[in-house]
């Protein structure tokens, strides 16, 4: 059997085994496991074909990155749907830090300005920005829903709306950075991060893989922090009502 075919069959077998196990344990999960696996297969097939096309027609890379930003913003925006203007908040908080970082890396020549280098780098940075935006926004929406007593207690003591929200935004930002900080700290020890694995599988030397992985991880530290800060700022503005009041969700 050819290696590509074996890969497809082996991975399908693992997904089916997971669905079967979930069914036997009556977890009510098997259906979503299977649809998730199917979706991933379809999406990756389409993306593979698209990227092949982009490699041939480099100008399409811009459209490709735009689609990544739009998808990430829709996903993050839907996680804080209760807030007015959530989609705009997500677009700003994701696109600004992620795309600036991509531009800067290309400008200084850290990566070559080819679709082959740009698209995966942009993808990782946009994904990281989406994670930080989602975690920060979700936490703040929860606070605006569930911690109204605390917010109103601070307002009643004479706080401005911005000051009444500040302890919550600080907590949300710190919480949103935890996964990345852990990932960065344990890089190479607990897991081999995706970029490293991909490059090694693709034939790059472990040294090159480690260097590129480090570049991505350290860039993500600033990108995700900026996304979290921007999300907090934009949510604070959206939740601040005239007369130093705070929106109750």
């Amino acid at each position, binding site marked *: 059997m050819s290696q590509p075919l074996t890969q497809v069959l082996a991975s399908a077998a693992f997904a089916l085994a997971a669905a079967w196990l979930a069914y036997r344990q009556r977890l009510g999960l098997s259906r979503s496991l299977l649809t998730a696996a199917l979706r991933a297969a379809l999406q990756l097939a389409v993306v593979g074909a698209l990227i092949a096309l982009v490699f041939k027609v480099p100008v399409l890379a811009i459209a490709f990155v735009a689609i990544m930003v739009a998808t990430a913003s829709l996903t993050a925006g839907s996680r804080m749907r209760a807030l007015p203007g959530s989609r705009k908040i997500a677009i700003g908080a994701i696109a600004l830090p992620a795309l600036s970082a991509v531009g800067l890396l290309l400008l200084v020549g850290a990566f070559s300005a080819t679709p082959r280098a740009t698209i995966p780098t942009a993808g990782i940075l946009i994904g990281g920005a989406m994670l930080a935006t989602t975690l920060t926004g979700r936490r703040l929406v929860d606070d605006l829903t569930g911690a109204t*007593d*605390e917010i*109103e*207690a*601070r*307002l*009643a*003591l*004479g*706080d*401005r709306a911005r*000051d009444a929200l500040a*302890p919550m935004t600080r907590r949300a930002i710190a919480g949103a950075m935890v996964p990345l900080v852990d990932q960065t700290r344990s890089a190479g020890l607990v897991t081999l991060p995706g970029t490293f694995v991909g490059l090694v599988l693709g034939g790059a030397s472990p040294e090159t893989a480690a260097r590129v992985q480090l570049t991505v991880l350290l860039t993500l530290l600033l990108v995700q922090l900026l996304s979290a800060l921007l999300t907090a700022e934009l949510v604070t503005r959206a939740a601040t009502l005239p*007369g*130093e*009041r705070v929106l109750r969700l």
Partner: protein
Amino acid sequence: MTGPHEQRVDGLAVRGLAVGHGERAVLRDIAFDAPKGTVTALVGPSGAGKSTLLRCLNRLLLPQAGRVLLDGADTAELEPCRLRRRVGLVGQIPVMLPGSVRDNLAYGLDPAPGGDALTTALGAAGLDAAFLDRPAAELSGGERARVALARALTRTPELLLLDEPTAALDAAAAHHIGATLTALAHDGLGIVVATHDLPFAAGVADRVVALRDGGAVVGEPQELLA
């Protein structure tokens, strides 16, 4: 500004207040005075709009119509943060902020008040100075209610709004809070207390505002709470 024939109230004056969520008016045409040095009890069944009305008095909630005057000045024209320090609110759930009781009492105050001011506020709420260094998170429900009251007092308000201050308390503690409110009013503070506890209201109130079917009936405690 008050009308030409209307007397300026030293304290809060509510005039033609209407509050609603969307189309539905929860409260309409509410009018009463809450002068400094007196205790006004807001009574009515739960859901009658007592908390809603209290939150209009320090503009945590904006009314659909009508005005709330403080010493004759429309509160809509006052700076909101300044207004909320002059008209303190102790919510139904006494939220403790992080840190010690001292941190709670001094919260947001710059310059930080001296130890005497904190002890005085704590004493007025019925707690002794030993509480100052206790972590606020470790206090019991009754102690939290008192710290929340003391925290409002450190802002040296002219009026104090209290939402169901006896809800979490036993009869003895409720009696003590009642005596505290009476003493504070005697010292010149204006107090508006929302409560569903009619015996408590009868014990502390100089005047009663009864909310019923979205409107307000104002009267003496003996006529409305009999």
